């Protein structure tokens, strides 16, 4: 085991444990805080893949902005575990069933799309996660999807303002 492998396993264990804690925590605020830790672990993986830019953007956008909004909503609505109505057994069963089938589907898809056997992840090398190659790729090869998604964001923003004004 070299340093990279040790870091990889430590980060993975950290991510999985935090993700389980998101689900297990009774208090929604605790869930959000564990979710922030998951994002940190994922950023750690990005850094192992030499994608520093992706890592830091992941922290700024997800852990820094979106999770703050999550916290905001939960704090304002004052969601507590004890006054939350308990779901029926049937609903729980259906939830487990649909979640399980989604997981199976995803695993099957990943197994089908690429030949994973004997492949190794490139660690500490590659440049696609750095700012120059990423910017070049976004504004040359992927410029149309990029612009379309920015229009999507703009329309969402306008919609939010209109709903807020009502």
């Amino acid at each position, binding site marked *: 085991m070299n340093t990279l492998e040790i870091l990889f396993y430590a980060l993975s264990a950290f991510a999985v444990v935090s993700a389980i804690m998101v689900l297990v925590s009774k208090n929604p*605020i605790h869930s959000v805080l564990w979710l922030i830790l998951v994002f940190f672990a994922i950023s750690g993986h990005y850094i192992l893949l030499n994608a*520093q830019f992706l890592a*830091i953007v992941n922290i*700024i956008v997800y852990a*820094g*902005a979106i999770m703050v909004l999550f916290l905001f909503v939960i704090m304002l609505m004052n969601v507590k575990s004890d006054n939350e109505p308990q779901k029926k057994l049937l609903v729980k069963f259906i939830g487990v069933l649909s979640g399980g089938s989604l997981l199976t589907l995803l695993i099957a898809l990943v197994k089908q799309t690429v030949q994973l056997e004997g492949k190794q992840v490139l660690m500490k090398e590659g440049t696609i996660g750095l700012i120059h190659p990423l910017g070049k790729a976004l504004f040359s090869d992927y410029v149309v999807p990029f612009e379309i998604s920015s229009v999507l964001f703009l329309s969402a923003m306008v919609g939010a303002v209109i709903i807020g004004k009502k």
Partner: protein
Amino acid sequence: MTILALDWGFIIEKLIMIAIVVFASLGIALYTTFGERKVAAILQDRPGPSRAGPFGLLQPLADGLKLIMKEEIIPSQANKWLFILGPGLAMTASLMTCAVIPWGSALDVFGRHVELQIADVNIGILYVFAVVSMGVYGIMIGGWASNNKFSLMSALRAASQAISYELAMGLALIALLMTTGSLSLKTIVEQQVQGHWWNVVYQPLGFLIFFITAMAECNRTPFDLPEAENELNFGYHQEYSSMKLGFYLFAEYINMIMSSAIMASMYFGGYDLPFFNEASVAPNIAAMIGVGTLLIKIVLFIFLFMWIRWTIPRFRYDQLMGLGWKTLIPLALFNMLLTGAVILAKL
């Protein structure tokens, strides 16, 4: 065992540097509280703290001792772990910024070439940004865990203020990054050392926006809405006592030092002493002069922060949001377009 094949000298060097930078920032923050009280006193035409030691110089130590000796109180209805986590997070987030600030060029110590920067990462500025956005959690978690509606209100205010002003700050930064072409703080400073002018000459409007947003991010008056005593009793740290309260107050001063250091590095040449040829003296002496120059710039910025605090009254909350969204963001966008047009014309 490949795991032990590390450059131990490198690790020890970095650990020593981290210790020096952290303790130096804590020490400066301690005396910034003293400076704040003296500046306030001068602006209000009174002597200020003058009893403890010569010129009152031992006052911060007395303040610190008083904070430590106070009783630790955790409210019975508070969420205990998060209540303790809050101030810790606030302090950690404000100290983490110092990792990417270039404090000087390089020293030669016992044949080792020591860069006076903890980590020269290629995403330096964005790292600062990420840490700033983490800082808001300390306030939010502390305010919520106190189980006090004034604390919660204040925490929500702090969070919405931080998010709103982060946008304008980011847009002001983009214009600067367009001229420098690099995200690394070391590269940005070196460009200014080598070039003719500091970045503030190319980006005056960008600097102004950055300065205002930095003031808002540090929760300094006129943007200290989260601590508006007359509306919120005391703010998000109302239920805190002893050193946990001290951590919150201290984190604010460290934030001020760090944002001064960032502004000095990005817009005012960092460790560059103007009209002085670094090559004319020994490299080690030049590096020490650079560190001193940066510290002087930081002190000047901190003084500016204090001067504004004791001169301008606090905004109203809607004025604060209006300034952020309706004035600073359009201005920053305009600045960005202008910079882009100039760069395009120069090509």
